[in-house]
């Protein structure tokens, strides 16, 4: 999993912020502090961590590299899937493994919140794709 320094660099570049701009947003005297966070993995105090989490809309665990789940809304979505597949042991095992992937990427075109049955169907399709692609190797 990524370090704090790697996460911070990724997030500030993703947002298109310069180190000087980020330092200003954090009321730091110099951008060299940001550089230290990123290069020697210096961990800031709790106040700075909280501000960074607000600026980048992510959890502190994500910032510190303790979790791959970026924010609360993703966490809620993952819990919703877990609940939807919990009565199907095979699908649940597949989902638990899938949600641990560091590069999990799934986006939905939906018009309303999905029912547990609808979510279960989506996970079944994803499993089907993974099973088929795994079978290609043999």
């Amino acid at each position, binding site marked *: 999993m990524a370090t704090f320094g790697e996460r911070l660099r*990724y997030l500030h570049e*993703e947002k298109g912020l310069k180190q000087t701009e980020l330092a200003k947003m954090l009321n730091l005297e110099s951008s060299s502090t940001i550089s230290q966070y990123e290069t020697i993995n210096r961990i800031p105090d709790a106040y700075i961590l909280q501000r960074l989490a607000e600026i980048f809309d992510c959890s502190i665990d994500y910032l510190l590299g303790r979790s*791959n*789940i*970026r924010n609360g*809304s*993703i966490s*809620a*979505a*993952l819990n*919703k*899937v877990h609940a939807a597949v919990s009565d199907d042991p095979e699908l649940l095992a597949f989902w638990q493994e899938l*949600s641990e*992937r*560091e*590069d*999990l*990427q*799934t*986006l*939905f*075109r*939906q*018009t*309303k*919140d*999905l*029912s547990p*049955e*609808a*979510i279960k*169907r*989506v996970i079944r*399709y*994803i499993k089907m*794709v*993974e099973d088929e*692609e*795994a079978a*290609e190797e043999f």
Partner: protein
Amino acid sequence: MNLKDINRLIKAGDVRIHVIKLSPGLYGFVYFSRKGRYHIFISEELSLPGRQEVLLHEIHHIVEDMSRIAYIFGLDMQWEQTEKEANFFARRIFRKIK
């Protein structure tokens, strides 16, 4: 991104399209597999123009969002900016090809 870029992406073979039965309220979704392929699932209930619009919506996600964000599971994000931008893109391109 324009129509040429979309064509190139599909021709490269890293995007697979599946038209399937989905539950009401879900028009489609895109999934990035372990093998590094993008799988776009589209509801068979949609009309042809509806399917084309969902395809463009998901392609926008692949190019603009999934290349940028390492970990995302976008369930129930229909009101978020990412979704609005993908809808805007799909409608703009769709008007061009209609």
